[in-house]
């Protein structure tokens, strides 16, 4: 029952995020979808993932998107309408994809099994796995995040500022 509620919240948030005309409203709907997903993760017994979802997606990604929207404010985009024909065509393509996936899901024999008890994951287990077995991937992801941070600043830095810096150096 709880699962159905959160699933409806998630899907409604996702649909609203993709169909609202105002960009800030779509980000608010996106936050609702992320929160619903976090609740589903908590319900599936993945507490750490649920909290990471709240921290990373709602706390960082959504706020970053809001900043990007405010920085790229465009008068035309606010009034621009999505043409009905492209919605129709892409809706048909998306529904066809969903129909194929749903057909495959219901055909699959691996989904017919007994109900398993909820797995108990302690933070100690997660920490052990990250520090021992998955230590190298963890280091690589740290390097990737550092590179992405520096890259993002380098890409987004104002060119005027760059030129000014260069002139000062010369």
């Amino acid at each position, binding site marked *: 029952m709880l*699962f159905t509620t959160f*699933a409806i919240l*998630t*899907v409604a948030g*996702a649909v609203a*995020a*993709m*169909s609202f005309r105002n*960009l800030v409203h*779509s980000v608010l709907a*996106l936050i609702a*979808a992320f929160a619903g*997903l976090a609740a589903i*993760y908590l319900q*599936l*017994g*993945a507490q*750490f*993932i649920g909290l*990471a979802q709240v921290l*990373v*997606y709602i706390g*960082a*990604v959504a706020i970053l*998107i809001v*900043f*990007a*929207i405010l*920085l*790229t404010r*465009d008068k*035309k*985009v606010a009034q*621009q309408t999505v043409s009905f024909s*492209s919605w129709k065509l*892409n*809706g048909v*393509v*998306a*529904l066809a*994809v969903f129909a194929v*996936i749903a057909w495959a*899901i*219901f055909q699959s024999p691996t989904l*017919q099994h007994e*109900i*398993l008890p909820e*797995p108990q994951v302690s933070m100690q287990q*997660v920490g052990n796995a*990250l520090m021992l077995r998955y230590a190298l991937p963890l280091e690589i*992801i740290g390097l*990737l*995040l550092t590179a*992405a*941070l520096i*890259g*993002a600043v380098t*890409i987004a830095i*104002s*060119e005027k500022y760059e030129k000014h810096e260069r002139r000062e150096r010369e």
Partner: protein
Amino acid sequence: MTSLTSCILLSSLLFVIGLAGALTRRNAILVLIGIELMLNAANLNFIAFWRYHPHSETLTGFIFVIFSIGIAAAEAAVGLALIISLYRHTRTANIDEVISMRG
């Protein structure tokens, strides 16, 4: 219908919504939001299969989602930086109006 089936159906629905949005919307930021939704659908799949696997104590899907969230954060940061840089050059975030590769 088992709980695993409903989880996978929810994740495929999320994926399809993200796909339709990324294909339809013309604002670069909304395309990025659609991609984020598709990534989240994949994460939900990993968690659902981890939860209903008989050997869930190996934590494979769980750890995979942790790394996937990290990569999604890096992707969002670089993607939004690219959009801001694009806006500074062309004064628009509409991907249909960006028709030239010259800066």
